[in-house]
């Protein structure tokens, strides 16, 4: 296996359709911007790219078939290179990174572009809408009416029962996240919010409020990866991939994903996320307490509290006190989402796994400006997506 280096990264700032940031730019235009930035950062030309792994959306671009990678290649010039279009819900960007990583690690290609971009439809992410009595997601909407935020809210309410988390503590996660994003020129929201503002925002699904749930956004991110041997021609301080993993949901998963499953007495958690992350620790030989920082999927503030505990970054029930002691800020002892996270970016589903790699790289290079984690040496990135998909990556310097 070859050691893999992240040579260049690039991003288009996230925004909302029609605003001054993304306007009415297409997915391809957003990706173009991110890819150009990544190529420039890497110091390579389009011609040098040997393969493309693209997180591909069902929402827009890709001729309606999730062929966004082909749109990117056509836009930059058809060189006939292999294109891999990855679909994994909100984990697609992480899957694309893993495929790109695997191509380089396996010695098949030595300069690979990983890209993800999205123009999201308005409002809450919907199911396919096809009336199918065999589709548990359709049944869940027809027979119960339980959209995505209600699932997160049930997990949040359970945490309040298991650990006594208060509404104010959930809100403090958002306050911290938005404060981090003030130092991030790529975040959609770059201004602070106060605790009062978060607690005054309306419930979307009690106990979770509007400001505590990430909206949907348009955005794109791209990274160029290559072998460590090739990277030596470009840099003397490479950012290396210590692990890249993908996992799916376990049969014993006890969270209410669809209509019903076996009841369970233990703590309910995302089995796919834990599996991907623990495999990454194992693959890299780096443990959860050795991380300099983590970029995790915060569709809602609940995850900033639950995930670190579930993965062993801190003890069960410790997350709230770490948050309130300021230990999850970039200068704390367990920095979580120094980028500002999904809640500050909004979710452009296919871009997220790639945006995380870019943030990890900037942090490890010391290029993260006001949100810099001091002496960052190793970072963890994690996503999870519909279908029970999850990814994790550990980068180190």
């Amino acid at each position, binding site marked *: 296996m070859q050691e893999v280096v992240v040579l260049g990264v690039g991003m288009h700032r996230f925004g909302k359709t029609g605003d001054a940031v993304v306007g009415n730019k297409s997915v391809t235009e957003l990706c173009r911007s991110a890819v150009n930035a990544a190529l420039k950062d890497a110091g390579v030309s389009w011609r040098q790219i040997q393969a493309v792994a693209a997180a591909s959306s069902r929402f827009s671009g890709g001729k309606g078939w999730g062929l966004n990678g082909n749109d990117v290649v056509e836009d930059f010039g058809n060189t006939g290179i292999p294109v891999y279009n990855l679909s994994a819900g909100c984990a697609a960007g992480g899957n694309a990174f893993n495929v790109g990583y695997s191509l380089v690690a396996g010695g098949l290609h030595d300069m690979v572009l990983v890209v993800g971009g999205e123009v999201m439809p308005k409002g809450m992410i919907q199911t396919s809408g096809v009336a199918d009595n065999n589709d548990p997601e359709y049944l869940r909407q*027809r027979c119960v009416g339980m959209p995505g935020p209600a699932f997160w809210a049930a997990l949040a309410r359970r945490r309040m029962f298991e650990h006594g988390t208060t509404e104010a503590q959930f809100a403090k996660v958002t306050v911290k996240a938005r404060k981090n994003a003030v130092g991030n020129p790529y975040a959609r929201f770059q201004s602070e919010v106060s605790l009062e503002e978060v607690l005054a925002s309306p419930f979307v699904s009690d106990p979770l409020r509007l400001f505590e749930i990430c909206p949907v956004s348009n955005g794109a991110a791209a990274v160029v990866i290559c072998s460590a041997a090739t990277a030596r021609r470009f840099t003397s301080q490479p950012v290396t991939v210590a692990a890249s993993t993908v996992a799916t949901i376990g049969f014993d998963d006890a969270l209410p994903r669809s209509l019903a499953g076996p009841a369970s007495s233990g703590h309910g958690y995302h089995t796919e996320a834990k599996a991907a992350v623990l495999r990454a620790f194992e693959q890299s030989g780096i443990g959860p307490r050795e991380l300099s920082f983590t970029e995790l999927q915060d569709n809602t503030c609940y995850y900033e509290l639950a995930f670190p505990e579930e993965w062993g970054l801190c003890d069960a029930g410790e997350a709230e006190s770490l948050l309130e002691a300021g230990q999850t800020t970039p200068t704390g002892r367990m920095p979580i989402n120094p980028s500002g996270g999904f809640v500050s970016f909004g979710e452009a589903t296919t871009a997220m796994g790639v945006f995380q790699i870019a943030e990890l790289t900037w942090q490890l290079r010391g290029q993260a400006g006001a949100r810099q984690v001091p002496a960052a040496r190793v970072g963890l990135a994690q996503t999870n997506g519909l279908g029970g998909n999850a990814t994790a990556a550990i980068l180190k310097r």
Partner: protein
Amino acid sequence: MAAVREACVPGLFTEGGTEDGGAALLGARCRGCGTPYFPAPSHCRNPDCAASNLQPCRFGGQGTLWSYSVANFAPPPPHRYDEPFKPYVIGVVDLDAGLRVVGQMVDGVGEVAVGCRVELVVAPLFHEDGKAVTSWKFKRI
């Protein structure tokens, strides 16, 4: 006024009667590994099950509220409701029968708590053409 009652989706649940244990979900249980299912799949999906042996199984009766959330805004179609939209509680219930299942609560916002005891019922989701279209729900006991 008694309305004609019609299940929102046929074959998933029954109102039942006094003779058969009352309201129940119509699912299945694998005799091979004991896994309960709702809705019933075509075969057991437990990767460690030696041999799929699915039998129809009714899940009803009492349970404990594992957690809940509130639908503060109307979900998009295919969900339907009587106008004007009124927020409702969604329960995640551990039925004593061993199934963890989601469903609306009959009880209002603020009337339930994690850990409270509930029972499965069949109740209207919305009304149309003089019918009450029903689904399974949970009621605090």
